[in-house]
Structure formats: structure tokens, C-alpha cells
């Protein structure tokens, strides 16, 4: 039970942290670089997802990337808002092209890390209807959307962001380039140009990099997106703290529970312990024997609890998402295994610690006293 609760709690905290990380990354590309004169629209673009037709040369990317304090940068091209049917849902969907190779924002919101190929798209959580997200990993669900005269396979879906991106359709820059100006596609945008460059900089270097870009005189506006990210972190801190307090409480409660259980168990077995001591078992070897038994029982119980919790959470992930509306990002198998091992180890340590005190009180008795009290 302890392992089950610990595993589940840690899983939720882990998911929440990954979710926060995803939020931070999405909101705060630390800097948004747009063509000069469009700085005021940059935040709106990000939040509303509106396709706004402004462009700047692609070479800005290399120039900004040459600043040593820049850690990552990725371009996006805002194409058009298209009226179409996506996953049997009719609507006006902003279409944005992004570069999957350098992307560091959208990938954190993907329900499942899937590699996007040519003529494959990623859709916002509501672009396919409110419930499409809950079927994202159903292998029998295959949806196609016609955009600019081409059929695109819906390869991935994003978790809700509460922003315009929830209705946005994302395709790769390669696909957009291939259709650009093609007869019948109706899609035209300046070749080798991008709409926005999202920049991630080294911690604390936002202002410096902004100044550096401005000094380069690239004909761009630089907008700092830091405030939103910090606000989210501040808002989420009490929730995180509460979660850790809950985990600590579970550990304390479990310790008390195991202690009570072992007190009863050891009392029941006082006669047996006295017998073992009479037969020549030293205090130390009896300690070791009983603590090993406690540890082994906890190891088996902890492993089973962790496996059961992992299996139940994984099996019911869609239901959990529906109920909690929380973008649960499952840890990778390796991390899951480590969490399981960690939880089992904690359970074993708790049990050994909790069993120590009742065992010690019994072993303080002389063997005959233990036998008499056991009777």
C-alpha cells in the first residue's frame, strides 16, 4: 500500500513537473524575434495562434545563433488560417510550419513523442474536437486532413495549453516549402523566410542577448517572454510544495503503520524469539534475522505495489486525463523503473526502521522472559 501510494504520488508530481517544464518552454521561449514593427503582435501571435503574414529572411537564424549566450533557437512560419474539417470537426484552423529538428517548444506539449514526417501534421488539443486527445494513442484511429490540396496524416496531438495553439495545426517547414507556390495549392509565402524565431538563452542572459540582437541591426523586434514563465513557476510552487508535504506525510504515516504492525507481530512471536535465543541465537543474529525478514517482506510488497501502481496508472491514463484534465506525461520506461526501484527501496528502509524499535524492545528481554511473555 505504501509503495502504491508513494509510486502514484511521485508519478503525479513527476508528471506535474514535466508539465510545468513544458509550460515554461512553450511560454518562454525566452525571446521572440519578429520582423521590425511587429513586436507588439508577437505575444498575441503566441497566445492566439493567429496566422499573421509577416516574414523576415532565414539568415537571421544563423546570425542570432552565433551569439554565445543563445542555447537554442527555432523558426516558425505562420502560413494561413484555413477553413477545413479536421477529424470530423469543422472550423477555422491557423496553420503554422515549424522545424521538428530544432523545435524546443511544441515537443513538450505533444501527447506522445512522435517524429513528424513529410505531409504529417500535429494538431492542437481542440483542433480535432474536444475529445480527440483521449484517443491519441489508439492505433486504430487514423485521421487525414486536406490542406492546400494535399492530404496530411494526423500524426500527433498536443495537450491543452489554454491558448490559441489548441486550435492550431502544425506541419513541418519542409512540407510547407514543398507546397509553396505549387499550382493548385493556393499557398504562397516568401521563400527562405520565416515569421518568428523562438530563442532560448542561458539563464539570466535574456536582456544581454536582446541587446546583442538589437545591436546587430537585423531589422527585427525582440520581445522578452520571461514574465509569463516566472508567474507560472510562482503560481505552481505551492502545489509542488503541497505534493512533497503529502509524500512526506505518507512516509510518516506508513512508518507508524509498519511500526504498529511489527509491534503486534513481534509481540505475537515473543515465544519464538525467546526459543531462538535459548537455542543459541545471539541478540545480533536475531536482530539481523528479524530485520531481514522485515526488509524482504517490504521488498516483495514494495515491488508488487510499485508494479501494480505503474500498471494501473498506465492502463487508466486516458481516464485520468479525462478526470483531472492534467497533461500526464508518463515517465520513460527507464525512469519508471528507477522510480519503482526508488519507491521499493524507500519502503524497505521504512520497514526496517519501523521494525527496529519493537524488535529491540523484545530483544532487551532475557530469553525466558520473552518465552513467558509470549505465552
Amino acid at each position, binding site marked *: 500500500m505504501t509503495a502504491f501510494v508513494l509510486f502514484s504520488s511521485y508519478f503525479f508530481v513527476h508528471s506535474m513537473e514535466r508539465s510545468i517544464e513544458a509550460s515554461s518552454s512553450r511560454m518562454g521561449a525566452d525571446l521572440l524575434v519578429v520582423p521590425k514593427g511587429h513586436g507588439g503582435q508577437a505575444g498575441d501571435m503566441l497566445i492566439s495562434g493567429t496566422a499573421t503574414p509577416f516574414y523576415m529572411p532565414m539568415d537571421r537564424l544563423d546570425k542570432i545563433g552565433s551569439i554565445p549566450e543563445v542555447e537554442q533557437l527555432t523558426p516558425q512560419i505562420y502560413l494561413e488560417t484555413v477553413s477545413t474539417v479536421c477529424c470530423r470537426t469543422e472550423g477555422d484552423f491557423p496553420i503554422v510550419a515549424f522545424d521538428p529538428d530544432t523545435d524546443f517548444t511544441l515537443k513538450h506539449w505533444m501527447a506522445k513523442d512522435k517524429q513528424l514526417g513529410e505531409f504529417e501534421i500535429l494538431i492542437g488539443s481542440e483542433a480535432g474536437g474536444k475529445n480527440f486527445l483521449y484517443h491519441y494513442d489508439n492505433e486504430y484511429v487514423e485521421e487525414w486532413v486536406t490542406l492546400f490540396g494535399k492530404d496530411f496524416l494526423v500524426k500527433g496531438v498536443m495537450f491543452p495549453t489554454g491558448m490559441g495553439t489548441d486550435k492550431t495545426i502544425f506541419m513541418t517547414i519542409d512540407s510547407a516549402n514543398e507546397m509553396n507556390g505549387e499550382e493548385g495549392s493556393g499557398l504562397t509565402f516568401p521563400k527562405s523566410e520565416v515569421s518568428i524565431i523562438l530563442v532560448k538563452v542561458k539563464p539570466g542572459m535574456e536582456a544581454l542577448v536582446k541587446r546583442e540582437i538589437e545591436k546587430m541591426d537585423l531589422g527585427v523586434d525582440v520581445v522578452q517572454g520571461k514574465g509569463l514563465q516566472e508567474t507560472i513557476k510562482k503560481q505552481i510552487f505551492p502545489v509542488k510544495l503541497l505534493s512533497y508535504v503529502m509524500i512526506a506525510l505518507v512516509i510518516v504515516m506508513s512508518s507508524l503503520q509498519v511500526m504498529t504492525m511489527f509491534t503486534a507481530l513481534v509481540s505475537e512471536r515473543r515465544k*519464538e524469539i525467546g*526459543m531462538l535465543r535459548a*537455542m543459541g541465537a*545471539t541478540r545480533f*543474529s536475531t536482530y539481523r534475522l528479524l530485520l531481514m525478514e522485515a526488509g524482504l517482506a517490504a521488498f516483495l510488497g514494495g515491488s508488487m505495489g510499485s508494479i501494480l501502481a505503474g500498471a494501473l496508472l498506465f492502463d487508466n491514463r486516458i481516464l485520468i486525463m479525462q478526470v483531472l484534465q492534467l497533461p500526464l506525461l508518463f515517465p520513460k520506461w527507464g525512469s519508471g523503473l528507477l522510480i519503482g526501484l526508488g519507491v521499493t527501496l524507500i519502503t524497505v528502509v521504512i520497514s526496517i526502521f519501523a521494525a527496529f524499535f519493537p524488535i529491540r524492545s523484545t530483544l532487551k528481554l532475557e530469553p*525466558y522472559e520473552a518465552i513467558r511473555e509470549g505465552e
Partner: protein
Amino acid sequence: MIRLEGVKKSYRLGREQWVDALVDINIEIHKGEFVSIIGPSGSGKSTFLALVGLLDRPSEGKIWFVGQDVTDLSDQARTAIRSEKCGFIFQFPSLIPTLTAVENVILPKTISGRFHPHDHQRGVELLEAVGLVDKVDRLPYQLSGGEQRRVAMARALMNDPEVILADEPTGALDDENAKVMMDVFVRMNGLGKTILMVTHDRELTSYATRTIQIQSGHVV
């Protein structure tokens, strides 16, 4: 071999209430004696056996065991003496339910960390001595009460002890099982082992070479 001088043992009943289980015991038991200890319930017989077998410490007085003053010995030293020189048979068999008969017999070797592979054969031989050679691999629940007592007896002999201490070894046993056990005691006594046996049954005192009667904590 065993000497008790002015031994007193008191147990606490309440906060400030004590009861004397044994008072002023002065007695000497010689090597090779078969001593039966008799007396009514609550007279202090089992406490006497526990003190002699180093399972408990006296409240007052001194105890010598095989020539050594063991009264104030450390727990480790007393455990070592118990392990090497004493074999206990209790009122209840208290076998470990998940171990077979032979595994229960060799338990004193296993828990004291002195187990050698040939001890298994010795365990089988001891079971043979108590008439259970065909039940070596049975679990305790597959044995009758009398058979469990006999396994416990074999277990007491595993370390080849100099002193065998038995607390009501035949209590609630049928005549046949009781006779098997007493025959083993006689055989062991014949091999020079010192035997101390607590019993209610006056008939069993006929097997002993000496009888000690305890009444209200006093040797009478």
C-alpha cells in the same frame, strides 16, 4: 557442575509490587546426574530451570555453571555457553512451521552459524533415535503432537550438550510417546549427560537419580 548460592528471583507484578518466584536457593547438581524437579504449579520449577540454563538472571545470589561464575556474564558469553553446553526441551514443541523435521532439528547449528554439511546427517540420526526416521522431511503440521515433542527433543540434542534441561517434556503426551522420550533421557544419561527435568508426574521421578521438590519458591 552447577551450583546455586543464595539465589533469589523476583518478578514485578505491578508498579511497586513484586512476587518472589524463588527464595534462597542453595543447591549443587553434579555431572551425570538425572535430576527431576517436582512441585505444584507456580512453585518456581520452570524459573529454577531457566536460571540453571542461563535463560534468565537471578535477582540475588550466584550461579556457577561448569565451574564458571555465570551470574554477571555478558549476554554474548551466556549465549555461547547455552549454545555449546545446554539443550532445552520446553513445555511446547515450538517448531518453526515452515521448516521440515530435520531442518528444525539442525536449527541450533544454523542459527549459531556453526552449520556443517555433515550436521544434516546427524539431524537424521537424532530423528532416528527418537523414532522418527521416516518423517525426516515432514513439516510440523504433518506430525502429531507427540511426534512434534520428539522432534523438539532431537533438536535439544543437536549440539551434543552436556546438560539437558526439560520443562514438562511429557506433558499431555500419551504413554507410548512419553515412554519413548523417557527412554531417550535414560540413554543420554547413560552417556554421561546431566539431565534436569521439571515434571508434575511423580511416576516419572523413578527414572531420575535424584528428586528436588520446590514449594512456594523454596527447595524442600
